[in-house]
């Protein structure tokens, strides 16, 4: 498959989604960031969801801190327990850094990628999205499809509803739904953001 603008845009999209799943930091989570998110949602026919996020942020005296609290509760630590750890092994092996994490790392290696020493576990959602971005950039379409179907979707489809149902912030509901929509194999040729 030729290196095309299509692949470039898809690579950027995965990269953007990975960015959304980082711990909220005003360095990147700024006005520009949210404007891009709103624009993306608008072109996807989800302008009202964008508006909902905008309103929630506007109502808060410290919107970034609020997102940090929610991020921690959802993905790092919460009471009585963390809602949805963003690691594949948790869902596939019922443990952290299980065999599924190793399988994921081996897939990265087979495609010629290594992890930085400062990186999280290989089956972390952010790394998986970054990896998909790199594959899209290299126009490795088959690798992308294989990774999605064998290593990404099996756990993500369990992770996504947990976050979507449990979150108290529309931002995270939207982000996990976006990731879900863009990684799902569609029966038709369409893209559907809203459940129908």
């Amino acid at each position: 498959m030729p290196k095309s603008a299509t692949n470039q845009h898809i690579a950027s999209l995965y990269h953007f989604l990975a960015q959304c799943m980082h711990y909220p930091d005003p360095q990147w989570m700024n006005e520009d960031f949210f404007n891009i998110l709103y624009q993306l949602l608008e072109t996807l026919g989800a302008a009202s969801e964008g508006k909902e996020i905008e309103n929630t942020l506007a109502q808060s005296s410290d919107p970034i801190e609020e997102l940090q609290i929610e991020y921690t509760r959802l993905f790092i630590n919460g009471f009585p327990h963390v809602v949805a750890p963003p690691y594949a092994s948790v869902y596939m092996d019922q443990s952290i850094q299980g065999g599924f994490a190793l399988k994921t790392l081996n897939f990265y290696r087979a495609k010629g990628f290594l992890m930085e020493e400062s990186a999280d576990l290989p089956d972390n959602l952010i790394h998986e999205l970054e990896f998909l971005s790199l594959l899209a950039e290299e126009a490795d379409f088959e690798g992308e499809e294989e990774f999605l179907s064998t290593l990404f979707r099996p756990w993500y489809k369990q992770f996504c509803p947990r976050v979507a149902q449990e979150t108290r912030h529309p931002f995270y509901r939207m982000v996990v739904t976006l990731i879900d929509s863009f990684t799902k194999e569609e029966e038709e040729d369409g893209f559907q953001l809203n459940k129908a």
Partner: protein
Amino acid sequence: MQYGMIIDLERCVGCHACTIACKAEWEVPVEFNRNWVHRLGPSKVGNELASTYYPGLCNHCAKPPCVEACPADPVEMTFKDTQSGKTATLAVAATWKDPFNGTVQIDKNRCLGCGACAEACPYGARYINPALVDDVSSDGKADKCTYCMPRVEAGLAPACVQTCITNARIFGDLDDPTSEVAKYVVKGAKGLEPKDGAIGPNSRYFGKKKDMTLLFQDHTPELADMGSVKRRAMMAAMVKPAMRKARDLGLLGLAGAMLVKGLTDKKDEST
């Protein structure tokens, strides 16, 4: 009416005059081709030695997968038969098959530059010309062989046909049984139909059995997975404006990528 082209492999000498004429006529960028000539062989075919050429171009297929792949919003277009003056109005995307002359054409004003058609074409006959940009697409526009319709409508032959030094390229109406191209089809001229496909290529080849065997064994293409081609193109078209802005603002990568292309620049740090 269905315009088609016969390439008589018995006459082609692989001189590339056709590719040069095409480039000159349509200002095709150096790195792309609307037509091409590949040398095949010498290879053993059965107990014989075969050596020929693969002069390729858009096949203006009966069921063109590139047309189906186009995600641009359809608009109504009125087509006119230059011979009878009849008209027909069809809803078409930014690329279509002309209902009267059977050629496959592109409306560059509406082309989104997504590249879905280029990925859908099993022959690699389309490219995205990045130099053609406008408000609709800053990624360039799809382009390809038009069977030189502007020349044909002016009463000329396609540039590649006119320039061919051995008359190996013959252009005409395949639906007219008295045309030279139709006579070649009766004699056995065949198109490069993809594996498992029935898209009806209208550029056809005629030659010795061993040369035809070599051509078909080396260059019978496979159909692309249309579902995913179109899905990706639509996805890219939708996210393009926001993602371009994200790139322009340097927002991507602020959090730092943790995966690196490792095998080539892995440093051996001894401590």
